[in-house]
């Protein structure tokens, strides 16, 4: 009970600060996933077209995924220094696999007869990609971005240790205080809420983009 009281006291006294860090945390997560998408979606399309590459690329992605985020961040820090950019690049690395994999699967699952029909009606390869394959695969690709974003919000929390700020900084403050449970919650609960909201919103977009639902 006392913790709940301390929690509400802390939140009401530091609402502005928590909001600033929330926004910062959100931006870092979005940038990381966005840049990862810029690389991974074309990469996914590429390996769907040239299947020989797919094994290698997906294996490389999986290997990156096994490195603990804290360790990766520390190594990247040596090259890039302290601050938000390091956190964003780390998140980008961890987002590459889910997005590439989903793009690959989405592209592979497009019905071959539809592609042949497009081809027969005289579409170029680029037209085929833009008008047939991508629209049919886009909801699966979005599912990958959704996964990446939800994981990413968790990874960015570690960014506090390399001076990136964000909600992780509030959690670390709590671990240093005498009886810091309330402060830890003030950092952890918004992080969880952000991940849930991201999941719900992205899920909604994903459904809207499902072929046959709209358009």
């Amino acid at each position, binding site marked *: 009970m006392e913790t709940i009281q301390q929690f509400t006291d802390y939140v009401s006294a530091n609402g502005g600060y928590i909001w600033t860090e929330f926004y910062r945390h959100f931006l870092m997560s979005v*940038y990381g996933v966005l840049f990862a998408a810029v690389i991974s979606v074309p990469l996914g399309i590429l390996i769907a077209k040239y299947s020989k590459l797919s094994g290698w690329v997906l294996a490389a992605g999986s290997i990156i995924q096994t490195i603990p985020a804290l360790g990766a961040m520390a190594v990247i820090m040596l090259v890039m*220094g302290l601050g938000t950019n390091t956190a964003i690049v780390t998140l980008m690395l961890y987002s590459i696999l889910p997005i590439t994999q989903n793009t690959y699967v989405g592209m592979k699952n497009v019905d071959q007869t539809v592609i042949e029909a497009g081809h027969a009606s005289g579409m170029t390869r680029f037209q085929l990609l833009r008008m047939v394959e991508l629209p049919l695969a886009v909801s699966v690709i979005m599912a990958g971005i959704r996964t990446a974003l939800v994981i990413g919000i968790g990874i960015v929390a570690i960014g506090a240790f390399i001076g990136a700020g964000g909600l992780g900084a509030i959690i*670390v403050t709590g671990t240093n205080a005498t009886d810091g449970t309330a402060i830890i919650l003030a950092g952890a609960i918004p992080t969880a809420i952000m991940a849930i909201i991201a999941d719900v919103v992205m899920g909604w977009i994903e459904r809207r983009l499902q072929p046959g639902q709209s358009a």
Partner: protein
Amino acid sequence: MLRRGVKSMLACFLILMLAGCSLPGLAGTSQHTIKIGSLTQSESETMAQMLAIMIERETDAKTELVTKLGSSIVQHQGMQRGDIDISSTRYTGTDIAGALGMEPIKDPEEALQTVKHEFQQRYNQTWAETYGFENSYSIAVTQEFAKENNIETISDLEPYAEDLDFGVDNAWVNRKGDGYDGFKEAYFAFGEVFPMNLGLVYQAAATGNMDVVLAYSSDGRIQEFDLKVLEDDQQFFPPYDASPVINNELLEKYPEIKEITQRLSNEISTEEMQQLNYMADVERINPRKVAKQFLEANNYFEDGGGD
């Protein structure tokens, strides 16, 4: 066409990164942003906030805090890379052993002069005057015990030492130089030594489970649990006086910062820092507010100190 777009976006992104610029919304690292790095401890963040408030008050520069850095070595590397321009708190004892790799120096004044000189020479950084507080190892007893037996210094404990239980931080016991072995040589041995997690030490003393404890001198919990820090009359523990460290390039650009550090020098005693740490660690007040309140109460040290 698609690939060219991707390439150019990637190129833009890389340029952004290499130029050390930030992405929109994540605080500008423009020419006019001064970055202040602080450690995980509250006192480091509080001092960073004080510097930030003072700098924004006195100059047209903006400040940005890089908080929760793991250790003074991280601060040091950040300073050298230019990721941060100011370290909010650096401690003489820590950096003589850490960044400079020298033998411990027991005299506080000599230690301070050494780091000032070496940082200027080796790293082109200015180690400013101390704030006035230190965060060193120290020996503490309950106020009650001190009053009853009239104890002021560590040597005063000697007659009682055999019957006293000594609660210490796990990390300290086996420390070379200023650990327990060194302590026994300089002073005396206690009846029994109980190594434990630092978080438990203060409480153990307050509840009477321990008679004497090893404490960090600026920790707010010394106040919370009503402990008395004893004077280190043999000067056994090396000094850990806190100062800000500033890159010289920044000082050339903003000479006002030198004046700010001079105004803050020797203004905050270890007892005052204990109070500020108490506010942050025990009362859970945000370091920014702690810093602002303290500066307002002292009129931003405009008249050469409000004490």
